[in-house]
């Protein structure tokens, strides 16, 4: 779960990391009031959960509260990467001498947190790492002893800080690490972390990504979720513990395991058919979860749904029950192409049979393998397209 910039900055502020004076606003009047209160010059920042806000016009400098109001009128509701800016962060504008990157992330290979610092601040660290890896410094952290000041002092030297800046830098780095651990984050970034002309540090932008699997420990952080930044099927899927990814094509795709799911959508694409979505109910799904998954995979205007279920924990009759229940809510002229294998597959197919050999609708086309379920889906899609041309 990714946090908004204003939420991330509040967390950093609580952990002793200096951030600009600022407040979040939901109306033009509020923007003006905040601007009048905190500073003559303010930066307005659209709160959307995506990168590239600056290029899209989502970050603007206002020289006085009137200009802030004018800019805010244009910025509220603007769309950036399909997401709507419903909130603006109004930050005091800060003069900048130097820009750095400082972040705590996860080194998946080492299975440890790492602190990452660079003298190339303000740009995407992945890009810096690719283009100029010599300017990126990384130190793994042993979680049992935590980040230590000596490690940060070495980093400070690496990125070329002055000796009198090191102590402040240490307290910022240790604050970031505490925020990372306290919130069960998988990423905490201060980017750019700037040095002002007076020598003090300030974190001008922050990104925090929380570990979804640890949210049960943080009811206060769950409340920070901004559902306006998700499309409706994502919200429904989350409620049922289902993975939903929109892919924009024409065939709904339902799976009971992510690996085979990815293999299947790769194959569909390679054969020229674009999946509409990727719906994974996971290994131990109940019939109700499968039913919900099927309804998510359907979307409007979808004619064909591919189901590839190779089960181990869930039994096939449970999966089949979910499919049959879901069919009751589907359009009669749709086609499901189903592969079902694993424990209880005979009982499962018996349940589906009225849709396969009988007259129950929507019809189900039976497939015996991953290869076949994809191949039959491609055939059915072609038939459907030909029929619609006629």
């Amino acid at each position, binding site marked *: 779960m990714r946090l908004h910039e204003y939420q991330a900055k509040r967390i950093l502020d609580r952990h002793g990391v200096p951030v600009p004076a600022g407040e979040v606003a939901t109306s033009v009047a509020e923007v003006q009031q905040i601007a009048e209160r905190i500073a003559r010059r303010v930066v307005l920042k659209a709160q959307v959960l995506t990168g590239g806000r600056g290029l899209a016009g989502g970050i603007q400098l206002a020289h006085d509260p009137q200009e802030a109001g004018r800019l805010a009128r244009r910025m509220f509701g603007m769309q950036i990467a399909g997401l709507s800016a419903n909130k603006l962060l109004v930050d005091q504008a800060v003069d900048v001498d130097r820009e750095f990157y400082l972040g705590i992330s996860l080194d998946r290979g080492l299975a440890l947190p790492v602190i990452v610092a660079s003298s190339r601040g303000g740009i995407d660290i992945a890009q810096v790492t690719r283009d100029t890896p010599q300017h990126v410094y990384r130190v793994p952290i042993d979680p049992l002893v935590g980040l230590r000041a000596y490690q940060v002092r070495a980093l400070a030297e690496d990125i070329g800080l002055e000796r009198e800046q090191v102590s402040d830098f240490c307290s910022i780095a240790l604050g970031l690490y505490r925020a990372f651990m306290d919130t069960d984050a998988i990423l905490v970034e201060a980017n750019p972390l700037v040095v002002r002309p007076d020598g003090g540090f300030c974190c001008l932008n922050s990104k925090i990504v929380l570990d979804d699997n640890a949210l049960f420990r943080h009811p206060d952080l769950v409340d920070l979720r901004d559902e306006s930044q998700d499309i409706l099927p994502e919200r429904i899927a989350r409620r049922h513990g289902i993975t939903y990814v929109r892919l924009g094509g024409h065939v709904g795709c339902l799976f009971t395991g992510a*690996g085979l799911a990815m293999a299947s959508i790769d194959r569909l694409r390679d054969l020229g058919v674009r999946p509409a979505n990727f719906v994974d109910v996971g290994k131990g799904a109940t019939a109700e979860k499968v039913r919900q998954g099927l309804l998510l995979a359907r979307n409007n205007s979808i004619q064909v749904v591919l189901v590839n279920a190779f*089960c181990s924990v869930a039994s096939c009759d449970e999966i089949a029950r979910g499919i049959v229940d879901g069919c009751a809510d589907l359009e009669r002229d749709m086609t499901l192409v189903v592969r079902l294998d694993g424990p209880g597959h005979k009982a499962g197919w018996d349940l589906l049979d009225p849709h396969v050999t009988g007259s129950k609708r929507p019809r189900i086309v039976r497939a015996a393998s991953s290869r076949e379920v994809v191949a039959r889906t491609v055939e059915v899609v072609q038939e459907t397209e030909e029929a619609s041309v006629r």
Partner: protein
Amino acid sequence: MSILVNGHTRLMVHGVDTTEGIVYVDRMLEAGTTVVAAVAVGQGGTWHAGVPVFETVREAIHATDANAALVCVRPPQVAEAILETADAGIELIVCATSHVPVRDMIEVNAYLSGQDTRLVGPGSPGVFSPGSCLVGAFPPHVLSAGTIGVLSRSGSMAYEVTWLLTQAGLGQSTVMGIGDGLIVATGFADALALFEDDPATEQVVLLGEIGGPEEEIAAAYIRDHMTKPVVALVVGHTAPPGRRMGHQGAIVQGYSGQARMKVEALSKAGVRIAETLDDIPALLRKG
């Protein structure tokens, strides 16, 4: 022979107090796995399907000589179950539970480093040596004993490929799921080293996916140490970047974790690359 689990494995199961845990035990008993004990706090002294349930791991080992453990408790309890089992001296722990908090796994891994306990997972479908021992949940009809080692981040893909191998007459020494998490304790490279040392394994199938550095680390190991042929498939090349594709770990972040780069690294290390699941048996036969 096989890796990690065999006819001498005496298994203890954490999590018979969950619906999923009960399914695991029942499936394993059907498959003939020697499940000697279960551990469930508050349920010591009871029985499940003929398996005695204990309050503590220490008690379970004392009473049954268990020498391996399967963890399928709920995510918040996983770290506790693993640490208790490791402290009691069990040398193989397979964690089937998915969605374990990352911080818990980081701490567990750090604690276990330098100890003798090997942890597989989290989010592992299990470790299966056909004909001698199945730890985890696997559709049993797809397995057959033989000389192919199978490694996978995904359960479903392991089932499919194992079934394709069995239908092609290619039996398996061991099929192992390394887990679906952002962090896994035993990576592809560690598991490849076990297969390299296992006299019963002649070739290895590696089933990778987008996200993280596992395949690249495996490629470096294969290039430098592996003498046995490896065939690999990496799935997810059509997945949109920045989106988690079902598995916690299956996510392309920035430039890292792309399928193309993984395939390139494996290919450079001499691994034969399968384009689709169905290509795999034929690529093995040539070896």
